């Protein structure tokens, strides 16, 4: 089985394209073909159910392709502080540098600083392919700063994809401008398509120079969001819909939202758990509104997954996040640091690196295809497994170093990514008060096994006691192929009576945890 050939994202990435090609050639049945350098199998042409032009748009966008998120990085620039609505899950006063969640940002940038930062990051992280503006307010409530940033970046780094994330209130006014700057990915946060539901989520919107409250606020917002979505679809701009799952408020209703956005051409639906803690100072945090459990979230995502793609790899990142999803390197790129950096934009080097990533990715898909053969006799059994990874689709993280685990569902259909669990420590008050291992077992309690590059003796024994099998024999191999190989062994043991298959319980979703590379005082 081919192993990962790209260096860890924690250090300087090292690419040896000759080595990649050699590994590719060795990989049986999946060598490079003469047709435009594309592999003869793998995912270069995209999934069978996706038109090639759409695949071209999403294949290296970590937020639009689950597969891409193992390989490509994104960055947000915080140029848009103003907002035009109020949400009960947001409080702009609270900002902790160690925290990772939407709306949180450590420093605000001017469009010029943002362009400089993009160059600095692109020069340091060649797999950074996407620049997004996601706040910390609403990008379209700050149109001058937002579009000036896009203009500057498209001049200095034309290969970088541009995207933005909006609440949708101002969207219909700006769709043509969005098209003009070739922003081909827009995310709209839609939490309801019924103002009766919306009144419990949005206390007010600022509309026509007035603060509009109550049901009327949600009626205006809903109409503008759906109109904006339709206008994006008409122009061929891919739309992702984010929805916050708020148990007892809109959880069941999100099935209706899913239908409404699907009918209007949305490409992807991302249902995220409510982040809510009293210390955030939000209305929901203060009134004790809880977020969903891991299984509640998965059940809703499963219910909405008909002919529409559901995003399950969202990390609900900060408005100034940098790096692969699940990591945040923003502390390396503060304004002081980027101004002192010697920035050299190496378009050729970036291209070569990304080609190597593409080759690796095809090898991964091929490895999975090999393993999946023979799974058809599985029957009804399906299990979840957790994986410690630093990226590249490889099991390459030590158990004790993992800040999150990725969760895969194994069944007769193969291995499917269904989510991730944060296990890092709380920003405040978490240190020492909580046993780290308990945190992890609670977060992956619904999993039968956890795949790691390495694990110590003590946690191994504790995990086994909790009924979760630690698996380190697939260290540095591809996640999906390894998980399927393990699943086959598991099924064989069940069939022979060596083990008895039991269902696992639910798991907790940890919230508001930091994912910064450095611990800052705060």
């Amino acid at each position: 089985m081919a192993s990962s050939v790209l260096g860890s994202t924690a250090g300087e990435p090292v690419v040896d394209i000759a080595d990649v090609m050699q590994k590719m050639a060795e990989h049986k049945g999946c060598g490079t073909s003469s047709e435009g350098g594309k592999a003869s199998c793998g995912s270069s042409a995209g999934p069978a159910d996706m038109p090639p032009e759409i695949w071209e748009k999403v294949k290296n966008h970590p937020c639009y392709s689950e597969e891409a998120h193992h390989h490509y990085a994104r960055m947000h620039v915080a140029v848009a502080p103003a907002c035009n609505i109020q949400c009960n899950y947001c409080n702009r006063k609270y900002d902790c540098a160690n925290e990772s969640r939407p709306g949180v940002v450590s420093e605000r940038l001017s469009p010029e600083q943002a362009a400089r930062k993009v160059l600095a990051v692109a020069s340091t992280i060649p797999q950074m392919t996407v620049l997004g503006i996601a706040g910390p307010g609403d990008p379209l409530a700050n149109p001058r700063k937002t579009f000036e940033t896009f203009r500057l970046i498209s001049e200095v780094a034309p290969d970088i994809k541009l995207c933005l994330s909006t609440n949708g209130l101002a969207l219909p006014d700006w769709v043509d401008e969005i098209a003009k700057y070739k922003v081909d990915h827009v995310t709209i946060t839609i939490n309801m398509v019924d103002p009766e539901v919306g009144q419990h989520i949005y206390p007010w919107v600022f509309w026509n120079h007035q603060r509009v409250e109550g049901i009327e606020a949600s009626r205006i917002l809903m109409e503008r969001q759906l109109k904006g979505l339709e206008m994006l679809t008409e122009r061929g701009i891919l739309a992702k819909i984010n929805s916050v799952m708020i148990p007892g408020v809109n959880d069941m209703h999100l099935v209706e939202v899913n239908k409404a956005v699907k009918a209007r051409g949305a490409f992807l639906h991302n249902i995220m758990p409510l982040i809510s803690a009293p210390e955030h100072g939000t209305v929901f945090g203060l009134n004790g509104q809880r977020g969903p459990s891991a299984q509640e979230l998965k059940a809703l995502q499963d219910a909405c997954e008909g002919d529409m793609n559901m995003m399950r790899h969202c990390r609900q990142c900060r408005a100034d996040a940098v790096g692969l999803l699940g990591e945040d390197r923003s502390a390396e790129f503060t304004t002081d640091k980027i101004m002192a950096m010697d920035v050299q934009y190496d378009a050729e080097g970036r291209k070569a690196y990304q080609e190597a990533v593409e080759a690796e990715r095809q090898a991964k898909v091929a490895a999975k295809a090999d393993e999946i053969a023979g799974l058809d006799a599985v029957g009804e059994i399906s299990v979840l497994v957790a994986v410690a990874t630093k990226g590249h689709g490889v099991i390459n993280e030590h158990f004790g170093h993992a800040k999150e685990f990725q969760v895969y569902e194994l069944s007769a259909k193969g291995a499917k990514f269904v989510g991730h669990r944060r296990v890092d420590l709380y920003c405040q008050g978490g240190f020492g008060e909580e046993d780290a291992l308990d945190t992890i077992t609670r977060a992956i309690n619904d999993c039968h096994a956890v795949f790691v590059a390495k694990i110590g003796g003590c946690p191994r024994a504790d995990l086994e006691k909790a009924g979760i099998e630690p698996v380190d024999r697939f260290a540095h191999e591809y996640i999906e192929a390894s998980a399927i190989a393990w699943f086959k062994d598991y099924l064989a043991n069940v069939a022979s009576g060596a083990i008895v298959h039991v269902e696992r319980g639910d798991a907790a979703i940890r919230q508001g945890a930091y994912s910064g590379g450095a611990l800052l005082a705060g």
Partner: protein
Amino acid sequence: MPYKIVAGQCTNCSACEAECPNEAISEQGTTFVIDPAKCTECIGHYDTPQCVAICPVDHTCVIDTALPRYQGAPA
């Protein structure tokens, strides 16, 4: 003359700056401030003071009681 921004409450989000019809609001350090000589309480422009309406933190844009209320444009 009358509105002011309570510095300790201001999140520096800049939303008010763009909405003020009198261009009375500007950034000063880590907060925004209202120039009392320019503020008209939005009288003659809008039904409600725009900074109050869009501010994400309640009780941040408030009447400055140390100054007399806006008397309307000079005749």
